[in-house]
């Protein structure tokens, strides 16, 4: 049998079984995938030199970052979204980590990169990448969430997939230098209470960071998931500010200035401040509060197998610590069940949860609710709107609802 006909049979069987993975109920003649010798079981495959770097299977070509063109004026100062609906575990593969740039991706030779420390220090310093490689390093897994994640949902359900409602997030292992070691090298003066971090790209992005945070757990990172940072994630050097909104994690990090006051730069005044219903605003809302979402089923991941054994899975995280518990409801919040937490539970990292159950084929109203290690419980969107109104753009960590109908089709909804 040629590969072409066998693929056609696969498709036909897939449609009969309701798409997705093929059900293996075979006719009397048996499953041809088993009873006939397949091409890949007979012919030789690619050699080791075929793809020196490697790439996902061509059958996974759909697992990609996606942009929402109408959100921004052009794709250069824009954002795309991690395909969290198709991922599992807690680590985000480097090639699908969401991107947010204010002036496009700066691409340059790391030999041309310099890191300057200036301001209220005993000695203003310049480091090359080669200098930085000689400092002691640490490895940590942290989530990075844009504080605008879920920002399109403030006025009601809008986006038709979890990639778009919750995909401004990724979770990788960083290798980097504790920021406090670099600051110590320059010698911070006692009047030095704030740090300005600046990027080398054409937006020259800047953020003020209090010295307590800088000396606590920040890293100056050069690797993600073991390999060099990707250009779109700040190659060759970026700041890691665990638990804090993504905009502080300056990419293409070229300068750290020590000062006695914050700078009130554009990305901490015009943007990344939270407008309340009464017209006043919160500023310096750095920490990302506890949040969770079911990634499957979700609008891009309908239930295609019909009633019976079913996996619900999702992600939970908190900028304040770990996630000891996630609750799941199937009936829109009348009754809740503890989800099964699985995989490592790391500080300020994504956590994976599952809920395995037998679906009776009736419509579902799915929600997840995260509890973090400080005792904070993820609020409903209405509870947030009661306190803030619907114009704050940032920090929407409210509970997400998915409505699954009898066919398994899943919609983004809000419920009473």
């Amino acid at each position, binding site marked *: 049998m040629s590969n072409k006909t066998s693929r056609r049979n696969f498709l036909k069987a897939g449609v009969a079984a309701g798409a997705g993975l093929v059900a293996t109920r075979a006719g009397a003649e048996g499953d041809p995938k088993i009873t006939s010798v397949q091409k890949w079981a007979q012919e030789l495959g690619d050699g080791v030199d075929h793809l020196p770097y490697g790439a996902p299977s061509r059958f996974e070509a759909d697992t990609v970052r*996606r942009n929402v*063109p*109408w959100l*921004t*004026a052009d794709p250069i100062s824009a954002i795309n979204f991690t395909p969290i609906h198709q991922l599992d575990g807690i680590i985000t593969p480097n090639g699908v980590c969401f991107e947010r740039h*204010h002036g496009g991706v700066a691409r340059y030779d790391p030999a041309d990169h310099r890191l300057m*420390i*200036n*301001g209220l220090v005993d000695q203003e*310093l*310049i480091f090359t990448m080669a200098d930085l490689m000689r400092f*002691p390093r640490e490895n940590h897994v942290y989530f990075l969430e844009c504080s605008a994640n879920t920002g*399109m949902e403030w*006025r009601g*359900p*809008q*986006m*038709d997939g979890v990639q*778009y409602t919750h995909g401004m997030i990724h979770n990788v292992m960083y290798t980097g230098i504790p920021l406090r070691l670099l600051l110590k*090298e320059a010698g911070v003066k006692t009047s030095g209470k704030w740090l300005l971090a600046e990027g080398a790209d054409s937006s*020259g992005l800047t953020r003020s960071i*209090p010295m*307590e945070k800088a*000396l*606590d757990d920040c890293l100056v990172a050069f690797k993600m998931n073991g390999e060099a940072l990707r250009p779109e994630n700040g190659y060759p050097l970026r700041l890691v500010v665990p638990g804090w909104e993504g905009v502080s994690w300056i990419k293409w990090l*070229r*300068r750290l*200035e020590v000062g006695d*006051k914050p*700078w*009130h*730069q*554009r990305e901490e*005044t*015009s943007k990344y*401040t939270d*407008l309340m219903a009464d*017209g*006043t*605003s*919160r500023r310096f809302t*750095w920490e990302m509060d506890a949040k969770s979402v079911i990634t499957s089923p979700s609008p891009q991941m309908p239930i295609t197998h019909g009633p019976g054994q079913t996996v619900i899975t999702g992600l939970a995280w908190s900028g304040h610590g770990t996630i000891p518990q996630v609750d799941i409801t199937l*009936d829109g*919040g*009348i*009754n*809740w*069940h503890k989800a099964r937490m699985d995989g490592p539970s790391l500080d300020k990292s994504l956590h994976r949860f599952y809920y395995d159950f037998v679906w009776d084929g009736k419509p579902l*109203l799915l929600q997840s609710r995260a509890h973090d290690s400080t005792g*904070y419980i993820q*609020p409903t969107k209405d*509870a947030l709107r009661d*306190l803030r109104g*619907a*114009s704050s753009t940032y920090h929407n960590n409210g509970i997400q609802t998915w*409505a699954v109908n009898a066919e398994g089709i899943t*919609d983004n*909804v*809000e419920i*009473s």
Partner: protein
Amino acid sequence: MLRFLRAFLIAGLIASPSMAGKFNLGRAALPTEVAAWNIDVRPDGQGLPAGSGSVIQGEALFAEQCADCHGDFGEAVGRWPALAGGNDTLADERPVKTIGSYWPYLSTAWDYINRAMPYGDAQSLSADEVYQLVAYILYLNDEVDEDFVLSQENFADFTMPNAGSFRLDDRDQAEYPAFGLVACMTDCKASVQVIKRAIKDSSTTAASQ
């Protein structure tokens, strides 16, 4: 913040001896190097270079270098950002946040235009040109008259209309106590109804936001 401080002190105590001292890596930065990169400007005027610029000069420069995206009067072309208007809209259902209606400090406009605009040709403006553009944007926001001249000397006197309405993050008092209660697990409500539904294909089709 106290929490961070405590964590740092503990980390400091248990750090290995090799982490305690300096590593003697890197080299001293030269004053010319620091001057080239240290371009940030603070609300108190620290970092502002000498110079000045008038509304009239700014109008011509803005028309030439900025209006294609931001509009002749800062009203925005298409989805590019607006730089003027929106006064008294912050408590409305659809607030319009611009330099005039929202920004707490004028220094932010000087700093940002100097470091990042015009989009695609960053750091190409002289100090006088940035003063001209900031003066013109103030004029577009009805903050100054057309004969106004902005300079290093009169800069710090300027107070933006919305400066007083920002406060520090108060979630730890305003929200966390309400969100740390016991979570209900059974019979939490009598009934549930779907009240709103997202539009299909909203990721590819422009929707109202």
